[in-house]
C-alpha cells in the first residue's frame, strides 16, 4: 500500500493550516465570499442546497481500515453519521459546518487523506479499476500508474489553471471497469507484441452536456514515456483548449474541433521535446511506488468451508452468484459489498457500516478496501474459506444485499436533494426503482442491467453509459425524466440513445418496467443480457413499449 513520505505529510498539513486561517478570516468577515470561494473549492468545500459539502478524494478508490474508521469518525463527529460514495471514487460529507472543516481536514491528513484537487480546473482525483491488484483478468495493477500521476499532478504549477477540470482513469485489465473511455484521458495497460508493458492512450472522452467516447491517440505508449506523453497532452490542451466558453472548454471539445489527427500531431511534436527534458527519475519513482503495491502474502489454506456453505445455504449461494468476482489467486475471491439495499440511497454508508467494513477488511481482507465508481465497497482479497464468515457479518449489519450488477444496483448522483446545479431529483427515482425490483422479485432472472441516473446534464450519475440511462430535467418547474438506452461504460463503450419525450416522476418506474418486460420477451435466451438484446433488436420495440399510445396511433 502506498504510504505518504515526509514530503506528502508536511504538504497536506501545511495546506490545512493555510485553509484554517482562510476560514477564520472568512468568518471574521475580512474575506468576502467572492475571495473565499475559490479557496474553499481548492480544498474540496462546496456550498450545496442545504449545507456545505466536503468532497474527499479516495485515490484510485483504495482505502485501509484505519482510513475507513476515520471516515466513520468524521461522519459521526462532524456530520450526520453517514457519507456518500460517488462515481468519482470520492466520499462526500453533506453537512459539515464551516468552522469544523479545518478540523475535518486535519483528521483526514492524520490518515493520509485530503480534499485537494477535488474541485477546480486541475487534474482531479485519478481513478482506477476498483478490482486493481486482485482481478483474475488483470494484466497489471493500474494503481502505481495512478499514484505516479497523482504525485506528478498534485500542485503542478503549469496545470493549476487548465481551461477546465481534467479527469484521468486507468485500467489494468482488458475488461474496462474504470470507464476509461469517458475520461479526458483514459489509460489501458497493455503489452505490445514482444510483451513489453505500455498503455493504450485515449483522449477526449467525457460525459456532461456534450458526451463523447474518447479516441485512441496512441495505441501503444511504452511505460517509460508515460509522464512526458501525458504532460504533452496537457500542454497542448492548456495552449489551445477554449477558455472563452465554459461549455466548450473540456478537452473533448478541443479534440473534436481540431480533429484527432491534428491533435495527435501537436501532441507528438510536443512529446519529442518533452521526452528529452524528462530524466529517468520518474521511472525509478514508478518502481518504488510499484513495490508499495506489492500483493499481500497470500494465505494458504483449504477452501472447504466455502464449498460447504455453497452447498448448504441458498442465501449464501445467491450472494456468491452476484457479489463475488474471480481473484487472481484461485483460493481467493473479490467480495463486493453492495451499498444499494433496496430502497436505500445509492452510495450512502453509515458510520456503523463503515466500521463493519473496516473490521472485516482488517480481519479477513489483508486490510484493503476499495470504493467503486458504481458506488459500492469492495474487499478485494478475501480467502474463500473466510467468505462465509464475511457474509454472515455483512448480513448482521444489513450489508449483504445480493444485487451487484442487477437492476437495483443503480448509480445515482445526489440530484436535487442536495446539489445546487440539479434540475431534478435522482435519489428518490433510484429508491423507487429498486423497491419495485424487490417487489417484482425477478431481478436475478433479468440479469445484468445497469441503470444510471443523473439529476442534470452534467451527468455525474453516468446516465449516458447506463444500459438504461435516466436524466432528470426541469420542464417549467416540474421534474421530468428523459430515458436513454444502450449506453455502455466498458471496453465496448457506447453512448445511450435518447428514446423520446421525457416522463413525469411517477411514470418513470412503470416506464422502466415496460423496458424490462419488453427485454424479457425479446431476449434470445436467459443468457442474452439487456444490452446484447438492445444491440441486436435496436430501439424500435423498446420505443414502442415506452410510448404505447404513439405506437398504437402510428399503427392505425
Amino acid at each position, binding site marked *: 500500500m502506498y504510504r505518504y513520505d515526509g514530503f506528502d505529510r508536511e504538504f497536506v498539513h501545511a495546506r490545512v493550516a493555510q485553509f484554517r486561517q482562510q476560514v477564520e478570516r472568512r468568518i471574521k468577515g475580512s474575506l468576502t465570499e467572492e475571495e473565499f470561494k475559490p479557496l474553499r473549492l481548492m480544498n474540496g468545500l462546496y*456550498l450545496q442546497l442545504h449545507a456545505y459539502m466536503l468532497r474527499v478524494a479516495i485515490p484510485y478508490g483504495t482505502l485501509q481500515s484505519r482510513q475507513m474508521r476515520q471516515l466513520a469518525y468524521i461522519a459521526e463527529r462532524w456530520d450526520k453519521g453517514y457519507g456518500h460514495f460517488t462515481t468519482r471514487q470520492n466520499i462526500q460529507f453533506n453537512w459539515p459546518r464551516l468552522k469544523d472543516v479545518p478540523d475535518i481536514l486535519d483528521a483526514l491528513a492524520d490518515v493520509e487523506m485530503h480534499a485537494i484537487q477535488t474541485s477546480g480546473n486541475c487534474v482531479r482525483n485519478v481513478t482506477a479499476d476498483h478490482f486493481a491488484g486482485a482481478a483474475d483478468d488483470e494484466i497489471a495493477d493500474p494503481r502505481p500508474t495512478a499514484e505516479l500521476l497523482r504525485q506528478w499532478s498534485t500542485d503542478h504549477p503549469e496545470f493549476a489553471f487548465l481551461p477546465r477540470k481534467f479527469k484521468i482513469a486507468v485500467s489494468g485489465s482488458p475488461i474496462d471497469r474504470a470507464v476509461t473511455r469517458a475520461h479526458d484521458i483514459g489509460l489501458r495497460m497493455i503489452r505490445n507484441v514482444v510483451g513489453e508493458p505500455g498503455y493504450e492512450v485515449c483522449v477526449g472522452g467525457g460525459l456532461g452536456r456534450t458526451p463523447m467516447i474518447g479516441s485512441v491517440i496512441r495505441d501503444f505508449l511504452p511505460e517509460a514515456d508515460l509522464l512526458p506523453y501525458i504532460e504533452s497532452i496537457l500542454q497542448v490542451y492548456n495552449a489551445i483548449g477554449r477558455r472563452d466558453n465554459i461549455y466548450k472548454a473540456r478537452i473533448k471539445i478541443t479534440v473534436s474541433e481540431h480533429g484527432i489527427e491534428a491533435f495527435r500531431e501537436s501532441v507528438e511534436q510536443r512529446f519529442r521535446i518533452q521526452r528529452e527534458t524528462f530524466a529517468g527519475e520518474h521511472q525509478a519513482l514508478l518502481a518504488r511506488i510499484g513495490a508499495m503495491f506489492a500483493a499481500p502474502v497470500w494465505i494458504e489454506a483449504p477452501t472447504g468451508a466455502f464449498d460447504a456453505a455453497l452447498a448448504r445455504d441458498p442465501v449464501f449461494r445467491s450472494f456468491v452468484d452476484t457479489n463475488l468476482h474471480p481473484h487472481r489467486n484461485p483460493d481467493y475471491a473479490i467480495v463486493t459489498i453492495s451499498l444499494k439495499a433496496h430502497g436505500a440511497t445509492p452510495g450512502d454508508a453509515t458510520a456503523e457500516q463503515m466500521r463493519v467494513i473496516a473490521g472485516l477488511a482488517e480481519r479477513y481482507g489483508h486490510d484493503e478496501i476499495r470504493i467503486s465508481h458504481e458506488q459500492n465497497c469492495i474487499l478485494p482479497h478475501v480467502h474463500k474459506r473466510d467468505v462465509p464468515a464475511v457474509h454472515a457479518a455483512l448480513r448482521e449489519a444489513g450489508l449483504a444485499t445480493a444485487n451487484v450488477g442487477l437492476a437495483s444496483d443503480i448509480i445515482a448522483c445526489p440530484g436535487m436533494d442536495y446539489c445546487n446545479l440539479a434540475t431534478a431529483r435522482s435519489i428518490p427515482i433510484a429508491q423507487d426503482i429498486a423497491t419495485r425490483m424487490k417487489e417484482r422479485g425477478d431481478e436475478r432472472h433479468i440479469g445484468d442491467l445497469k441503470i444510471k441516473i443523473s439529476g442534470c446534464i452534467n451527468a455525474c450519475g453516468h446516465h449516458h453509459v447506463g444500459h438504461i440511462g435516466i436524466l432528470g430535467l426541469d420542464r417549467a418547474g416540474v421534474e421530468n425524466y428523459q430515458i436513454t438506452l444502450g449506453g455502455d461504460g466498458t471496453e465496448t463503450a457506447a453512448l445511450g440513445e435518447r428514446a423520446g419525450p421525457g416522463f413525469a416522476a411517477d411514470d418513470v418506474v412503470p416506464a422502466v418496467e415496460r423496458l424490462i418486460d419488453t427485454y424479457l420477451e425479446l431476449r434470445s435466451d436467459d443468457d442474452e443480457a439487456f444490452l446484447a438484446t438492445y444491440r441486436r433488436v435496436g430501439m424500435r420495440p423498446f420505443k414502442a413499449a415506452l410510448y404505447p399510445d404513439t405506437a398504437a396511433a402510428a399503427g392505425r
Partner: protein
Amino acid sequence: MARAFRPSILTANDLLDGDVVYLARDGAWTRRSAEARLFEDEDEANRSLAAAESQEDAVVGPYLAAAVPGGQLGPEPVHIREALRATGPTNYCHGKQTGR
C-alpha cells in the same frame, strides 16, 4: 427585456453552517420559510437584496425566489428546488424537517 417581477421571498445560506435562511418580516434572518417576508414590491425587494448582499459576514449568495402567499403556513416557494430547500432532502429526515 426584463422579466416581469413576481412576488418573492429573499433567501440565502447561512455563512457558518450553510443552512437555508430567509429574510423574516422583522428584518432578521430566519430558518423557517413560513416566517419569510413576501415582497410584493419589486423596488423594495431589490433594496433588501442589495442590503443582504452586503451582509458578507452573515449569509452567502442571497437571491430572490418566487413565492405565493400560501395560507397559515406563510409564503410558499413556487419552484421545486425552493420547496426542497425549505424542507430538506427527501431521502432522510436530516434537513429542516427534523425541527418540525
